[in-house]
């Protein structure tokens, strides 16, 4: 009987010709490499984040004491508008595009995005949106608030071109997001590594995929709405002007039909990051992979029918308010499922306290608090009492700063070694975390109290006899502590680019495929794309390589044939970490 022998797969070079890197700045401007575009996104977003942060500090400084004259009313309104718009449209949404661009192809075992040129177009449209918007600071910045309610934003009350730059910002960044979203969906749907069925897709990719689908659904609505506003302003149409048959309420419906899914657009990839970070540092598998993935898509499905809870004080029949109250509360259920699964992931894990885990745990605490005040605000009689007050400001900063920004910080500390090949300083990272955590609680915790005592949002000053002075001073001090924490991370990043400890391919002993490649990965990502056999492919590869090593030691004449791209798995299986490399 003939015997057959099976050979280990021979590594093959799949890239026949690679464009040589010119190494100058033009190679960055003309790049279509997903990793470079990701880095461009991240750097640009952080520039905008810094600008938005300075705007926030200016506002907090103005409110630190009663009857302050640091900033006048007009400039304060402009700062409010610029800050909100910058943080939403130029930081939180695109920063996830940056991480998704860099990480998704690596995590699914692809060599690039499906449409690399479209990817570059998406980034440059985003930059154009930001430039157009910030060009208004040289003339008249918009001042109608980040959701630009009509009639404040119409030609009568916002006659300058500043409001138009806001409209063009939405058009350009919206187009960028839509293009990027299509690219993400196609990439994940068609370019996954062999064996990576949908049931093995990393949870960050589930978050990004769901976010992309939501963007494709929501962006056309806001694009249509701002186009209608533009024609109202310049071509005398009457969509939102009640004097000629329009309705300001229509703007609210259209804006929030986009705006509430938008909240989840900003947070779902963050949920994905937390789902990636926790199991790595708890040293155990994620608890309830399917439940977390299902709650992600469930949130997306439900989120398109809850928008009117932003309009509880508009003239709406009671029964309609009741419907939106119940639907808004229902959406807390899948979010709660996630929180429970994350806590269960940590439960009885062999927890390794590193900076990404600090930020992930900070996220868990603060986002849950923000979610609880969200459930309170979903109850419309409560919303009637605190609508338009600092309670609402506190709530959405708990959700967005504590939620999205904490997740962004966790992602930076987690993936920086992969992107640069260097570790961030742990001590600086932990110091930054504590500054941010304490600063955040001091800044926004006290704003709940301010809101309950009646301080309206978007006022540029207040009288001393209101009794809001002390709380505002505390909040302002907290804002500067928070800003110090963010600056510490910026310093950490800049310093570590040159002086950071060399990371090695897999410094965290992580679970997903991006750690299979070198740090930073080569232009083509992987020489060999491994076959995925579970939701934790790196763990499987490490186990396989450790087994092969034992076999090789047992039979010294045997030769191990390792895939060229298996740097991460080999290093962690044999040495167990990268910081000392």
């Amino acid at each position, binding site marked *: 009987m003939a015997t057959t022998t099976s050979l280990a797969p021979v590594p093959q070079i799949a890239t026949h010709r690679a464009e040589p890197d010119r190494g100058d700045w033009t190679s960055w401007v003309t790049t279509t490499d997903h990793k470079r575009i990701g880095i461009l996104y991240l750097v640009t977003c952080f520039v905008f984040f810094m600008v938005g942060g300075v705007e926030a500090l200016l506002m907090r400084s103005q409110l630190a004491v009663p009857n302050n004259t640091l900033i006048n009313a007009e400039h304060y309104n402009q700062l409010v508008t610029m800050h909100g718009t910058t943080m939403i449209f130029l930081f939180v949404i695109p920063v996830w595009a940056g991480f998704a661009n860099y990480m998704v192809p690596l995590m699914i075992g692809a060599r690039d995005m499906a449409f690399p040129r479209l990817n570059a177009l998406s980034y440059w449209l985003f930059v154009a949106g930001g430039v157009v918007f910030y060009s208004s600071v040289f003339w008249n910045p918009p001042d109608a608030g980040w959701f630009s309610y009509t009639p404040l934003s119409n030609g009568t009350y916002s006659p300058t071109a500043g409001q138009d730059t806001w409209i063009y910002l939405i058009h350009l960044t919206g187009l960028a997001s839509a293009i990027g979203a299509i690219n993400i969906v196609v990439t994940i749907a068609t370019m996954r590594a062999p064996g990576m069925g*949908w049931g093995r897709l990393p949870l960050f990719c589930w978050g990004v995929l769901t976010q992309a689908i939501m963007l494709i659904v929501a962006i056309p609505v806001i694009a249509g709405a701002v186009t209608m506003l533009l024609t109202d302003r310049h071509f005398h149409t009457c969509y939102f002007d009640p004097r000629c048959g329009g309705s300001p309420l229509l703007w609210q419906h259209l804006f929030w039909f986009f705006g509430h899914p938008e909240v989840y657009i900003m947070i779902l990839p963050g949920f994905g990051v937390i789902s990636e970070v926790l199991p790595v540092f708890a040293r155990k598998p994620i608890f309830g992979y399917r439940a977390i993935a299902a709650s992600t898509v469930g949130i997306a499905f439900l989120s398109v029918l809850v928008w009117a809870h932003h309009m509880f004080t508009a003239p709406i029949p009671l029964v309609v308010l009741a419907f939106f109250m119940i639907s808004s509360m229902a959406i807390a259920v899948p979010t709660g499922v996630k929180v429970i699964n994350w806590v269960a992931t940590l439960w009885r894990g062999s927890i390794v306290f590193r900076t990404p885990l600090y930020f992930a745990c900070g996220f868990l605490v603060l986002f849950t608090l923000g979610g609880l005040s969200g459930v309170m605000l979903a109850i419309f009689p409560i919303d009637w009492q605190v609508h338009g007050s600092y309670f609402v400001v506190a709530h959405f900063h708990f959700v967005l700063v504590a939620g999205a920004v904490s997740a962004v910080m966790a992602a930076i500390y987690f993936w920086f070694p992969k992107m640069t090949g260097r570790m961030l300083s742990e001590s600086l990272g932990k110091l930054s975390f504590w500054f941010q955590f304490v600063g955040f609680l001091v800044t926004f915790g006290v704003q709940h109290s301010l809101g309950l005592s009646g301080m309206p949002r978007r006022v540029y000053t207040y009288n001393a006899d209101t009794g809001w002075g002390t709380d505002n001073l505390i909040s302002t001090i907290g804002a500067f502590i928070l800003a110090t924490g963010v600056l510490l991370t910026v310093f950490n990043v800049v310093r570590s680019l040159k002086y950071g400890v060399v990371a090695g391919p897999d410094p965290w002993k992580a679970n997903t495929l991006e750690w299979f490649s070198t740090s930073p990965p080569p232009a083509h990502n992987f020489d060999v794309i491994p076959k995925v056999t579970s939701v934790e492919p790196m763990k499987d590869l490490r186990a396989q390589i450790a087994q092969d090593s034992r076999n090789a030691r047992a039979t010294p004449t045997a030769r191990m044939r390792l895939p060229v791209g298996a740097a991460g798995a080999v290093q962690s299986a044999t040495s167990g970490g990268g910081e000392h490399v």
Partner: protein
Amino acid sequence: MSSAAPGWGEWSIDPGPIIAIVLTGAAYIACYRRAHRRTGRRYAAHLLAFTSGLGLIAVALLSPLDSIGDRWLLSAHTLQHVLLADVAPALLVLGVRPPLLAHGLPPELLRALSPRARIGRVLRSQWFAPVALGFWVATQWAWSIPVVFDTAAAHPLLHTIEHLCLLGSGVLLWTVVVDPLPGQGRRAVWGRLGYLGASRAAAAVVCLPLTWLDHTLYSRYADAPRAYGISALTDQHIGGAGMCLIEFLVFGVAFIIVFLDLLGREEQGTRVTERASQPDLPKPARNPLNVS
């Protein structure tokens, strides 16, 4: 217009629905008993779902909800339609989900549903799902047009046809989503999520205008005697919001369940393929995803 209270004791003894419900229930019990005899299993969840579905149809057609919806309140009428088009069909189809039909249907019916038979081919055709979705959407929209809705409410025969259309289109839509046919395999058809999403959007086209409009759409109910002091416009708002809420919950829960089912099927399919290509692979663990 005077304010009055419609009677809650007006149960209908219309023989048509009663006979249909009894016959359907009897057929299901026969199927259930045959499956139980063959497999020794008790399909309690199937039984509960099917009988709940039949119960809801009885509530929709025989209880005072029917008469109140006919003569007094639009909101009662829309509730009746949601029960017939969305909730009851979902429960009925869940009651016959695999493996009940494979074990419970008589051989001649199983043959008729097999892929080689004409009915089986139609049900497994790639066109079945879009046609079922299209029929459901057309039914939802067409019967909501004010003239059609008012006319149907005034003419018993047309009203019966309307209810049959709603129930039938609901059963077809949920057949696509739940996939109850015997021998259908365990393929992960991700289009099912798309059908659920599309049906959600189509349903919103009906319920959202009712919820938000500031004038009444249906003259029959604008002119109807006012029950419980509810104005015609508030009645319309309640009808729209109630419809939105029930569909929101039904489709939302269904979306999550179908997604979980698809993930399971996908993983199972991947495992089968892997085992076929590498026969020496160890048997799948009890927890195939290697997760808690």
